[in-house]
């Protein structure tokens, strides 16, 4: 806030008074940056420590306050993917479900968002108000009836039972996608229609390339939601072979009494589980924060 005032001084004058001001600004820069660095380090430190503890040797005693292992080893990671704990299977199951859910729900959201924003057809507003109404219903209300419907449709213990509600439950995704699509100029679509493009050409050649930022946000949210979710895969999948990563971690965490390796393996798996949203965030961060912030500011 004071930048503009200070920079005006730095560019215009060279008197001793001004030099003192520049010095003061440099001092403030050092102080605020150091403060931010210290706070961030305190904030991230416990996370670094638990990551460090997963690289410790099994029988080496490690101080929990430091991120450096007493003796470096990848034993816990090897144990995690061993015949005893099977986390490689759970990770693969979770990857497959997250990718399938994201691909299908993003496609469905993009198609519907485009139609709701840019095409005119009878029943459009009714459909949209349906979505908004149901968007308000929380998981707490939907969990049990959704499970009952899955049971009636014989989808309990199947992956379709995990994927399909994700496709039809992304009401927020539809809402966001419609907002993105409203920014595509209608004249552009009209001009393409005049030139003889059919409706499918319009969608694939004009709408898709222009909606990439929106698609990125929807796909990120969907992937993160599917990967991070615990409750729904926990209640729907009881077959151990089909189990996903999050329920597997939670289950092993609750059986730790009988098994001394369970807790370190749980920690290792929890760190591995965190890598997917972290990588996703690092990749999509550029437009992600600004888009969401824009959505709430508006």
């Amino acid at each position, binding site marked *: 806030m004071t930048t503009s005032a200070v920079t005006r001084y730095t560019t215009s004058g060279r008197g001793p008074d001004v030099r003192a001001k520049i010095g003061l600004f440099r001092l403030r820069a050092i102080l605020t940056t150091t403060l931010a660095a210290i706070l961030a380090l305190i904030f991230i430190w416990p996370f670094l420590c638990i990551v460090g503890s997963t690289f410790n040797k099994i029988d080496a005693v490690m101080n929990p306050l430091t991120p450096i292992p007493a003796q470096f080893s990848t034993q816990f990671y090897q144990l995690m993917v061993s015949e005893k704990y099977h986390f490689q299977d759970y990770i693969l199951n979770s990857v497959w479900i997250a990718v399938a859910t994201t691909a299908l729900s993003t496609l469905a959201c993009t198609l519907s968002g485009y139609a709701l924003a840019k095409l005119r057809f009878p029943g459009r507003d009714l459909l949209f108000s349906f979505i908004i109404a149901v968007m308000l219903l929380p998981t707490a209300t939907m*969990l049990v*009836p959704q499970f009952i419907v899955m049971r009636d449709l014989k989808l309990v213990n199947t992956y379709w039972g995990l994927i399909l509600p994700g496709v039809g*439950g992304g009401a927020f995704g539809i809402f966001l996608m419609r907002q993105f699509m409203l920014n595509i100029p209608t004249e552009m679509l009209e001009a393409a229609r005049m030139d003889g493009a059919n409706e499918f050409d319009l969608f694939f050649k004009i709408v898709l390339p222009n909606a990439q930022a929106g698609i990125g946000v929807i796909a990120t949210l969907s992937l993160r939601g599917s990967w991070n979710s615990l409750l729904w895969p926990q209640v729907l999948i009881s077959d151990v072979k089909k189990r996903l990563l999050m329920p597997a971690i939670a289950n092993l965490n609750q059986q730790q009494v009988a098994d001394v390796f369970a807790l370190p393996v749980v920690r290792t798996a929890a760190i591995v*589980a965190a890598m997917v949203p972290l990588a996703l965030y690092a990749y999509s961060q550029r437009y992600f924060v600004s888009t969401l912030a824009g959505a*709430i500011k508006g």
Partner: protein
Amino acid sequence: MTSIAVPGPTKKRSSIQRFFSDQTKWTPYLFVAPFFITFAIFTLYPMLRAVVMGFQESLGYSGKWDWVGLANYREALTNDPRMGVAFKNFIYYTLGSLATQLPCAFLLALLLTSPALKGKGLWRTLFFIPSVLPGVTMGVVGGWFFSKTHGFANALLVSLGGPRIDWGGYAQYIIPTLLVIAFWQWMGNHAVFLIAGMSGIGDEIIEAAIVDGASAWQRARYIILPLLKPVFAYISITAAAGSLMNFEVPYVFLGTGGGARGKGWFFMTHIQQMAFGQFRMGYATAIGWLVFFIAVIITVLQLRLYEFRLGKEEA
């Protein structure tokens, strides 16, 4: 006879033909179909089913449903001590979260928007990161952090000459430990939203205040804070709704029992336990509706609160 009967079908067929020959007429329905078919089956139908299920009770896992009228709701509101526990925990957890996270998020947002600060993007990212992590990871990290024997918190206490505390064993520690985890997960996220809100405040307002001789503290308190009220409203409404659905961290951190003396028992834990522990599907659905009504009530209350304050500010 035939001359009357024939025009009907042909006219009808021609309107269908017209519908399918004009691509702009049928493609919209094709485009919305994938979403709306799954939406109708897996969201809309269960919602309607839930309205009925709230008045029913299933007998075990048999799939038979008995109509019980308002009995589920009556039991949940008057004869279920765990509902009271869940409600009290929800209130403590929500108020505690907002009271600890919002002031710190505001101060952090002020620090991270300070013009003198270098490397703004890096700091924002570091504080934002915990909010994208899975709830399961946060629960596991919390369990490690507050572990009695090899946890971070006790190691720190002992190295400072303090006692070793059994965080999970005593009821009075459970909500505070959950608040620490929630603080770690959400405070930076709130700060990033506040920063986004601050970027919407015009430079000329701030510069006018500087010219008028307002100190940094006065600018923060009397100009930035009031102008951020819509962002605060957004954060506290979504945070309250989120803590109503609080499940993953307490479930992983405290286990299925909800910790010592039920201090970690929340509405979602209760619903999950009723539906999949005791197979009382109708009763769990009724609780789900009550949670929905609570969500509506606290949202409306907060909207009123913030609007009222906004109105007062302008007057």
